[in-house]
């Protein structure tokens, strides 16, 4: 790569968002803004009211006028499968339901009022069966809903003493790690749990589908156009060239529009097929919260061994993830969970086991962090516990054990470079005044106590292991008249700024102005499959081939300029006149040294990790146990910030989402149904709850990243907020909480358990 020759005029500068004006003026069309197509119907789903049961019959109220209502049932679905990893999830339930809100019947009608009444006129005769609603119940397997024991997927990572060859690796490695722990001077155990989280993107899921001579069209609020296309091809038995999936302007995703839109697109397409009319389905907030995916709840059991001087040696960790009723992406989420379970520490011996379990809750799914926040919550809380046992300051203990270049992770991945970890810790601790604030007893003014805590985390960028090699993500950059360049990619802008940072990368790579770069609407018919918009891969992975494609196209124009003179635009127009089309299609290839063994879970899990140190300062009301985050410092090694303001925006927005998960967000369940599916009672932080953020960008460039070394940072800020807040609460109050969320009610209960509450 010729990055050293590139002049950087745009990368590294905080240029304004290229999509900003259209969004603030209302010109940008989200799916519900798209003009109605002629004859368009509204669609709705009739859903199961129970968590588990046999579907005996579906009755349409004979008193209701069904003449202008389209009805789709399971038997109308050509291939009743939502295509993901495993073919276990139906598009519509046929004989049984496995979670509340599972779709059973689809209806479409031109009149939305009548559609609502029609939903109420469908009677599902269900015979409820015992449901498994919690991880513990799934593990106990008194009721079995999946396989022999409810276990759905399983991973084992072993390193050092635990890395034994045996027929039964699970048992042998367990025995080996126990021996290693027995040899340690200080052994500490803990159990850490965390809960569902709803994405709460501003724009709910929505899709419009219609059929014409070219086949099926689906346009919606989506992250991954090619995932939707794959699902439509399978469910409707169509060849890819007959399925055209387009992203409408999308108002947030956070993973919630990764796999779920496939289901919604299938529903809209089936109704459109049967009615012969375009069908629009846009969820209200309630349906969106009830029916779509959530972050996986998890429980981690951790035992570690260390030297008396605090040197961490041995890690044994078992993670249980609640998959919900269908597999969806859970094995991949669990994989990322176990791969991040060692945290930022150099363990000599490690055994990390992960199990996902089936329950009768709506399927858990992709959510920013994708499994890593759960294990990082556990390991960070646990190292805080080790510090307490040793009488050490947790930040100092963490700093003592940080991974360095040349150290290896639990999969045996040797870190080759781009490890700005120590700089992150130093920057965040110094800026926050952590040391002074920890040195004295927590400050108490009136009935308010202040405390400060820190976490240190990492996040792998891109697909795991061999994933990127299998994926073969592609992008194209086209030359357009007037010397303009157009990026064609399936990496979508869902609010995070892809269009802007890609334009910056292309402008520098081609030596053109930002205003000369266009971004094609992501549509499977017109853009190549860049892989999904997930996994912190957009900038680092896809951005690197965007850069290369732009360099190639520009090089052709420059050659023409050198040969026959004229401006870049004039030379480009000559080329176009001569050749008709000038374009570069680039395919991603991971660095050659990336080696991964899927069978043994060993090797280079990610080509690069981003790192961060988060420090939270909280104020706890000792009467009401209300917690306010009054300061939040984050120093993140991002490799290279393509657009510093937007990069900080990602880090701060992610931190606030993490603070919400830590303190207030809680999905409240009863019998598998959600009691708080509304903005008024699913409590995300407001602007007034946001602390002042101080964010520092540390740049330890990754040699294969675009723009001079950018790494993926989309998920990193979700990882460290919760443990930093919990550590700060512990500092302020002495209350040790190992389960999320850290609500005032739970703090009160912990305080009562210690027998110390006095109003």
């Amino acid at each position, binding site marked *: 790569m010729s990055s050293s020759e590139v002049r950087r005029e745009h990368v590294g500068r905080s240029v304004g968002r290229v999509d900003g004006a259209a969004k603030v003026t209302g010109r940008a069309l989200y799916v519900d803004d798209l003009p109605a197509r002629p004859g368009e119907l509204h669609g709705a789903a009739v859903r199961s009211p129970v968590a588990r049961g046999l579907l005996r019959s579906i009755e349409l109220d004979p008193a209701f006028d069904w003449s202008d209502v389209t009805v789709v049932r399971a038997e109308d679905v050509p291939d009743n499968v939502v295509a993901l990893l495993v073919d276990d999830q139906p598009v519509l339930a046929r004989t049984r339901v496995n979670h509340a809100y599972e779709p059973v019947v689809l209806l479409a009608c031109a009149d939305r009022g009548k559609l609502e009444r029609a939903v109420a006129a469908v009677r599902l005769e269900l015979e409820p069966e015992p449901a498994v609603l919690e991880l513990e119940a799934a593990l106990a397997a008194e009721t079995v809903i999946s396989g022999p024991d409810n276990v759905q997927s399983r991973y084992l990572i072993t390193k050092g003493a635990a890395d034994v060859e045996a027929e039964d690796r699970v048992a042998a490695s367990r025995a080996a790690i126990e021996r290693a722990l027995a040899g340690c001077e200080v052994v500490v155990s803990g159990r850490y749990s965390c809960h569902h989280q709803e994405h709460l993107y501003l724009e709910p899921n929505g899709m419009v589908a219609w059929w014409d001579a070219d086949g099926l069209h689906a346009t919606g609020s989506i992250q991954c156009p090619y995932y939707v296309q794959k699902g439509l091809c399978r469910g409707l038995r169509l060849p890819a060239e007959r399925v055209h999936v387009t992203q409408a302007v999308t108002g947030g995703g956070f993973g919630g529009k990764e796999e779920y839109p496939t289901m919604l697109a299938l529903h809209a397409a089936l109704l459109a097929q049967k009615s012969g009319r375009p069908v629009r389905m846009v969820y209200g907030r309630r349906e969106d919260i009830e029916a779509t995916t959530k972050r996986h709840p998890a429980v981690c059991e951790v035992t570690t061994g260390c030297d008396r001087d605090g040197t961490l040696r041995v890690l044994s960790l078992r993670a249980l993830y609640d998959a919900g009723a269908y597999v969806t992406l859970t094995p991949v989420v669990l994989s990322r969970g176990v791969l991040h379970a060692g945290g930022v520490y150099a363990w000599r011996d490690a055994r990390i086991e992960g199990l996902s379990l089936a329950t009768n809750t709506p399927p858990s799914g992709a959510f920013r962090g994708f499994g890593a926040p759960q294990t990082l919550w556990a390991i960070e809380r646990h190292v805080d516990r080790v510090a307490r046992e040793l009488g050490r300051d947790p930040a100092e203990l963490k700093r003592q054990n940080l991974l360095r270049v040349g150290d290896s992770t639990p999969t045996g991945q040797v870190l080759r470079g781009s490890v700005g970890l120590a700089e992150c810790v130093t920057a965040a601790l110094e800026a926050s005044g952590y040391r002074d604030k920890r040195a004295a007893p927590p400050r108490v003014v009136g009935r308010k106590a202040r405390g400060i805590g820190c976490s240190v985390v990492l996040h792998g960028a891109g697909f795991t292991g061999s994933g990127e090699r299998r994926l073969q993500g592609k992008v194209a950059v086209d030359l357009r008249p007037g010397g303009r360049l157009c990026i064609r990619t399936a990496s979508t802008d869902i609010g995070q700024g892809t269009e802007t940072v890609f334009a910056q990368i292309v402008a520098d790579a081609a030596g053109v102005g930002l205003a000369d770069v266009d971004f094609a609407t992501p549509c499977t018919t017109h853009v190549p499959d860049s892989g999904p918009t997930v996994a912190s891969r957009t900038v680092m992975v896809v951005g690197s081939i965007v850069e290369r494609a732009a360099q190639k196209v520009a090089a052709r124009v420059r050659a023409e300029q050198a040969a026959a003179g004229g401006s870049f635009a004039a030379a480009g127009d000559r080329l176009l006149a001569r050749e008709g089309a000038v374009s570069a299609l680039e395919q991603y290839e991971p660095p050659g040294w990336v080696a991964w063994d899927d069978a043994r879970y060993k090797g280079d899990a990610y080509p690069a990790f981003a790192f961060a140190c988060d420090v939270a300062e909280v104020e706890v009301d000792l009467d009401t146990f209300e917690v306010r985050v009054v300061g939040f410092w984050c120093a993140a090694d991002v490799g290279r910030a393509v657009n510093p303001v937007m990069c900080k925006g990602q880090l701060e927005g992610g931190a606030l989402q993490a603070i919400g998960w830590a303190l207030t967000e809680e999905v409240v369940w009863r019998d598998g149904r959600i009691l708080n599916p509304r903005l008024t009672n699913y409590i995300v932080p407001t*602007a007034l709850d946001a602390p002042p953020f101080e964010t520092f960008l540390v740049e330890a460039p990754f040699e294969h990243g675009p723009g001079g070394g950018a790494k993926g940072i989309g998920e990193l800020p979700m990882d460290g907020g919760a443990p930093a807040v919990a550590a700060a609460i512990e500092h302020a109050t002495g209350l040790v909480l190992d389960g999320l969320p850290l609500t005032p009610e739970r703090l009160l209960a912990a305080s009562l358990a210690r027998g110390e509450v006095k109003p």
Partner: protein
Amino acid sequence: MSVADLARYELAVPRALPEACQLLAARVASGEPTLLCAGGTDLLVELGMAPPLGAGARPPLCVDLSRLPELGGVERVDRDGPRIRIGAGVSYLALGRHALVEGALPLLARMSHDIGGPTIQARGTLGGNLATGSPAADGVAALAAHDATVVLTSVRGERRVPFAGFQTGYKRSVRQADEIITAFELEPLAPGSPWCWRKVGARQAQAISKVAFAAVAELEGGRARRFGAAMASMAPVTATLPATRALVLGTPLAGLDGEALDRAVAADTSPIDDIRSTRAYRAHAARALARGFLRELGAAV
């Protein structure tokens, strides 16, 4: 709100109170479904969650009270001593900024900044807050702490009801179907007197109270000569804390016993477990907030 929702009600926008009273009286006499809408911050949410109307069903008439001049205004009046009259249709935004309210009813001004968020504050009104009757209503707790007089108007005339006699049960009150809540009359707090507004919600804005505590006091010679207090979300109605008030008014502050105070608060409230919080938490927070204010008044609790 989408076009599809528009058929759910019909709208009447009277321009003066007599017109509104007549319309309401006629609707009540005919038995047709009628809704009163002040700021609409509760009503529109409820309409949005209501089950769909049956085909051909007559939608209710929504009478918009937001443009009635008689429901506006904040002024000083004399009625058995000085009172502040607050129009039932004054928005929280206007209330929180009003110099008379800030000076003489500081608790009410503070509460107005805490309720909902800016959009709710711009539309929401004290009259609507009392009319919908949620036990979690912040504005109502503030009215109750001041022992506000509720002014009701109908074609039959105007009547005044002391707050303590207004609420009769969960979302029930002495308001007749043809009556409109038009104003509140509150006794000003003596300058410099202690007061407390504490809203305990799950976040800093847009939160329905888990517990809210409103209290005012005027002190003289080591005793409270005036003590008004109320709590939201602690009972099926706004809790007016009679036992707590009696204890505080009847005891020199220096002699007030913390455990007796806790017992009085417990006797005055009946918290429950619900979606927002737990019975145990509410009971604890209520005790702690009451003790906190009494400490401010000089009690050693």
